[in-house]
């Protein structure tokens, strides 16, 4: 009976006196605990960590599959190329610009929307559903819609609406935009912000709705202004939700391939690292170079992730300690 209870209690509870018998039984119990974890761990290490080790090895090799006889050890040559080649350097810059701008803009708009949706009004549930819709369109499909149905310079909806509005005022000379060729980076950012804002909004709305309302009410009674409440109560409470949204958004947007591939095919300086790497190994067959670029992405991600993980980890610890 007692062993049964000890078995399901969390570690630390079963502080049994250390006798040799108990020790070996404890070890067996520890393995019984670990067993359900192993399939997932082993599978994940085989499919994600092992290939990365191979990438690491290939990154030090001169290997183009079109001329296999020239395959040789290359040292740091590929890394030097990644950091000096203008296209790849541009790709690094594009990745940073794309990730930072999409995360910041969608966080800001998401915050505004969450603040609005936090109030009670008629049809709030439906408005929220409409706002989630962009997130639930297949990314390639969303990019196609932006490319052909919205941003197309001749018959896209945006220019169509401009023509329509101008014609209301009797003008036939409506301004017509061509983002895809004149500001392709903005087109990519626009479509990604549209897809990711709902995600940020959902996280921030959940944050708002977990606010302890009694302090807000007390502040209101004391005559605090809505801005004061937002600045000193709401924003500090939302901080960790903003960080979480930013972190998760960054993880996904750094890896974005679909929007760049579909909207601009990486043209006009919009190729980010995932797209550039795809091109380097899939079309140029430069396996060594592509691997080195991949390793650079991972190093960059690790730097960002260290900060990000620290945030998550502190939240995690804080809650575990309670």
């Amino acid at each position, binding site marked *: 009976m007692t062993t049964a209870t000890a078995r399901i209690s969390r570690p630390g509870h079963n502080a049994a006196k250390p006798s040799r018998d108990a020790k070996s039984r404890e070890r067996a119990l520890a393995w019984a605990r670990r067993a359900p974890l192993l399939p997932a761990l082993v599978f994940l290490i085989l499919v994600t960590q092992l290939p990365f080790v191979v990438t690491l090895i290939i990154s030090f090799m001169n290997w183009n599959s079109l001329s296999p006889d020239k395959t040789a050890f290359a040292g740091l040559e590929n890394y030097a190329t990644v950091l000096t080649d203008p296209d790849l350097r541009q790709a690094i810059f594009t990745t940073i610009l794309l990730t930072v701008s999409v995360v910041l803009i969608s966080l800001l708009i998401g915050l505004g929307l969450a603040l609005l949706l936090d109030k009670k009004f008629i049809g709030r549930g439906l408005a929220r559903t409409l706002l989630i*819709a962009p997130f639930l369109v297949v990314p390639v499909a969303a990019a196609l819609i932006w490319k052909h*149905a919205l941003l197309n310079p001749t018959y896209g909806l945006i220019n169509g609406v401009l023509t329509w509005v101008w014609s209301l005022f009797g003008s036939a000379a409506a301004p017509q935009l061509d983002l895809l060729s004149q500001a392709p980076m903005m087109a990519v950012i626009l479509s990604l912000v549209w897809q990711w804002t709902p995600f940020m909004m959902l996280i921030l709305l959940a944050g708002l709705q977990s606010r302890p309302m009694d302090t807000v009410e007390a502040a209101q009674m004391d005559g605090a202004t809505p801005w004061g409440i937002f600045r000193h109560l709401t924003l500090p409470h939302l901080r960790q939700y903003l960080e979480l949204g930013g972190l998760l958004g960054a993880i996904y947007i750094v890896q974005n391939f679909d929007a760049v591939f579909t909207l601009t095919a990486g043209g006009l300086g919009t190729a980010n690292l995932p797209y550039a790497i795809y091109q380097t190994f899939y079309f140029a067959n430069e396996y060594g170079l592509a691997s080195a670029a991949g390793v650079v992405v991972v190093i960059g991600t690790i730097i960002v992730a260290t900060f990000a993980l620290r945030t998550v980890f502190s939240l995690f610890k804080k809650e575990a300690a309670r």
Partner: protein
Amino acid sequence: MSTLTPAAPQSTPPGPTALNTGRSPRRRGKARMDPTRNNTAAGIAAWLLALLFAVPVLWMVLTSFHSETDAATNPPSLAANLTLDAYREFFGETSGVSPWPSLINSATASILSTVLVLLLAFPAAYALSIRPVKKWTDVMFFFLSTKMMPVVAAILPLYLFARTVGALDNIWFLILMYTSMNLPIAVWMMRSFLAEVPEEMLEAAQIDGANLLLILRKIIAPVAMPGIAATALICFIFSWNELLLARVLTGVVAGTAPVFLTGFVSGQGLFLAQVCAAAVVISLPVLFAGFAAQDKLVQGLSLGAVK
């Protein structure tokens, strides 16, 4: 020690965690000078923005029911006649190219990888919450860190491996890839859902001599089932949406729906209605899955950190 739910970043109040229930009614009418007016303005602003965000989706649906000539006009023809022509075209009436194989491939890859993910993630989540291993937080962060490694950093060896063993353009290889892609997220999500199972109930059942199966069925399942379902739906969505792996690892045989969609990337001429029809058809499963998981969507997508 009762709150071993460390994934929540802050003090979530106990009780129902669904999105719209956290509000106390006493907030209305108190304190604020004129809450009704305030809310009307917020309501109008929220509705305008919601419609603005929904316009691309609504426009996609409307255009998919227009004829090609009505779809490509400037200014847009809102009131044009509705027709199913674009859908007929998409399903290959004149071209003879059917999207069905790719849709079936997508369904196969998404469903089977989700099943595999659940089979692997459930025991793992169990060993991280209900009967946690020592240093279980380290294990959690190892899972999360694998998700931070971009797919591009591992795709070349995977491609070379597949080519060597003849697994290119094989749906099973893609299924394994999607399983590894979703496994870390699923472990995090499921752990947060399993952590909601009250410890006292587990202990009581154990004392009563209930075996593992009975505990799983009678105590864990009722609490965790909605969360597990949401996890499954979110994994399904991520697999269904995936493009990069599918594009590199599959071809004519195992190509998925997003790969099929890329056929429309550089199309010219009158095909706008057909693009919209394609986007609608391929997005439908995701829209259904997303709205089905709506209540648990935030908790799932935030890896259990937000309730």
